[in-house]
């Protein structure tokens, strides 16, 4: 996504501060893709991601006066989206919602096949992880949080965070292998 012109962004943010619906719509459209990509990797479906996205944007529009305009809006936005996703995750943990993923067959596949897998499919694999694996993997690998920070955020031990990350990787490898085999079969057929 191209970096948004700072003058236009400032004007949009001004409009949003005045609760101008048109400015809000434009800002939403402008950062929809960026924010949605964050939400998708913290959730198991697009519907769930949309819920977090709108929760996050509602916070953006209602708390915009607390945004420091000298800092990056994208960083602030991503932080809000991640926090909203974590809130959502905590609620899920309380409801004890977990599901397991089938073990993939242990097959060795050529890496060129992997490179042909679309981004959506790869993010889809993250979505298939159990919530605790998914959250730790996203926070650690994609958003660059340390295990200490993750442990603090999720109220778990550092060891549990490391263990979840390790298992998440294992699961992803399994799923990746399965996809690769399917794709390989499709190509060779």
């Amino acid at each position, binding site marked *: 996504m191209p970096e948004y012109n700072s003058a236009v962004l400032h004007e949009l943010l001004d409009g949003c501060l005045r609760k101008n*619906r048109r400015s809000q719509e434009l800002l939403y459209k402008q950062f929809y893709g960026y924010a949605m990509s964050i939400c998708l990797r913290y959730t198991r479906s697009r519907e769930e991601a949309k819920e977090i*996205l709108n929760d996050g944007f*509602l916070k953006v529009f209602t708390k915009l006066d607390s945004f420091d305009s000298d800092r990056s809006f994208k960083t602030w936005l991503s932080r809000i989206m991640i926090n909203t996703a974590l809130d959502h995750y905590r609620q899920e943990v309380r409801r004890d919602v977990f599901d397991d993923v089938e073990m993939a067959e242990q097959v060795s596949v050529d890496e060129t096949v992997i490179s042909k897998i679309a981004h*959506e499919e790869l993010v889809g694999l993250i979505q298939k992880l159990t919530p605790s694996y998914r959250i730790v993997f996203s926070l650690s690998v994609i958003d660059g949080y340390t295990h200490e920070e993750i442990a603090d955020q999720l109220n778990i031990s550092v060891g549990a965070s490391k263990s979840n990350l390790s298992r998440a990787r294992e699961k992803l*490898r399994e799923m990746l292998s399965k996809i690769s085999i399917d794709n390989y079969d499709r190509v060779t057929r």
Partner: protein
Amino acid sequence: MIELPDDELDKLFRKSSEELDPQFDPEDWNSLKKRLDETDGKTPAAWFRKWWPLGLLLLMIPGGIASYYLFGNEEKNQVNEQIQLVPGSKVTENKSAAQEQTNAKIIEKIDKEALTNAAQEKENTEPSISPRSEKDTRTPESSLKSDLKAVSSKSSKTLPRSLSKAGGVYLEPNRSKREGGDGALSLNADEKVHKNDPNGTSASELGARQAIGSNGVTPNRTEMGGNADATNMSPVNVQQNEVISADDQLDRMQITVSNLGNKQINWANRIDYPVIAVTEAEPDANQEKSKESIEISNAKWAVRFGYSPDLSTVGMKDFTKPGTAVSLLVEYSIVPRLFVQTGAVWSSKGYYGDGKSYKLPLMQDPHYYGPDVKSVDGFCKVLEIPLNLRYDVLQIARSSIFAGGGFSSYHMNKEKYKYSFENEMDPKIKMRSWNGKTGWYWFSHLNVSAGYEYKISQKLSLLAEPYLRVPLKRVGYGKVNLFTTGMWLSLRYTPAFR
């Protein structure tokens, strides 16, 4: 199983996550917009949740004032009635026909009460004295007979004069010794019972009232055969106080004050008192007030100050955040119920419309090669001069329902237009906004309204008036058909000119 090292695996997923760019779904925005509308109080339910305390307060203020005036006036009326009972007071000198009738009614009412009180008097003479507040369940007829029996009975026990009336004990000072009384000056039966009048009417006062007569007009003193005061205060003829039957006494007791007023009485030893000239009563506060109310009811001028939320829109859709409007209007009644109305209205209007709703000079320029304006956010401050007619469709006591219509002229001040384009990054975009003012647009709008007026006092009233401004011509830099709606909450003042 794929043998990817951790860092390779991480890189793969990191890259995919960063490069993923999900397509915008308008449905997602619509659902967020609904939530924002609710948060900002733009939906009816949210608006109600946000403003109901203020609405309740606005209803309570006129309600409280109305109840104050309603019940306050009732108490005042009661006090006035009591004042009218006092003979010789200035109020009773009022010779208006209506008041004469009222006086006659009041006197007859007192006569009836007197009969009832006579019955109560009997109870006072009983050894076991019941409190005065105790409810008497007897009929006036039965109680009167029993009272008369008590009066004629020699064994009736009369309390000494020195005892106080407090505690429900009532003296019988106006009965001759032959009747069983203490030989004091006696008035007739009606006067006697009036001693117990809760209004505190004294015997002398009653005498004066009798002099007024049933129709409230003071009878000719020569017809009365002497001075009215002398009539009332003269000693009782002993021969008339002979022991008589209960039925005769009942007939006598049923002679009302009004009847006595028309009788000529001949006195043996008449004392001629000088005739007192009754002077015209000075105008009292009530009369002043009634005069003033007549003046107000006939008042032709009124001033009103109003506030309204201003909901402006292009084509009655896409309402934005409401602006505000205040008004100062003068009304003149040209015929009863019909007013002509003018003044000034100051408003701030925000509106939004797609590019086609506007006739922007930018887009009209044949040398413009930039992208089409997708939508425009407009804002302006308007001075409006309305010229309306108001007709009171229904007038009930303190309330009236009215309808109005007319024309408005707009003076467009501080106009701001902000353009939105399909691609905000398009380098061909030359102009993104316009600020300025375009001045007068005479008779640019048609006004329609209807409302409810509630009088909180003689001079002040509250009004609620929903209205609509329909464009007759395009206004402003954007040449836009600007609809406006809202509801005036006004305070109307009716000065009384003398």
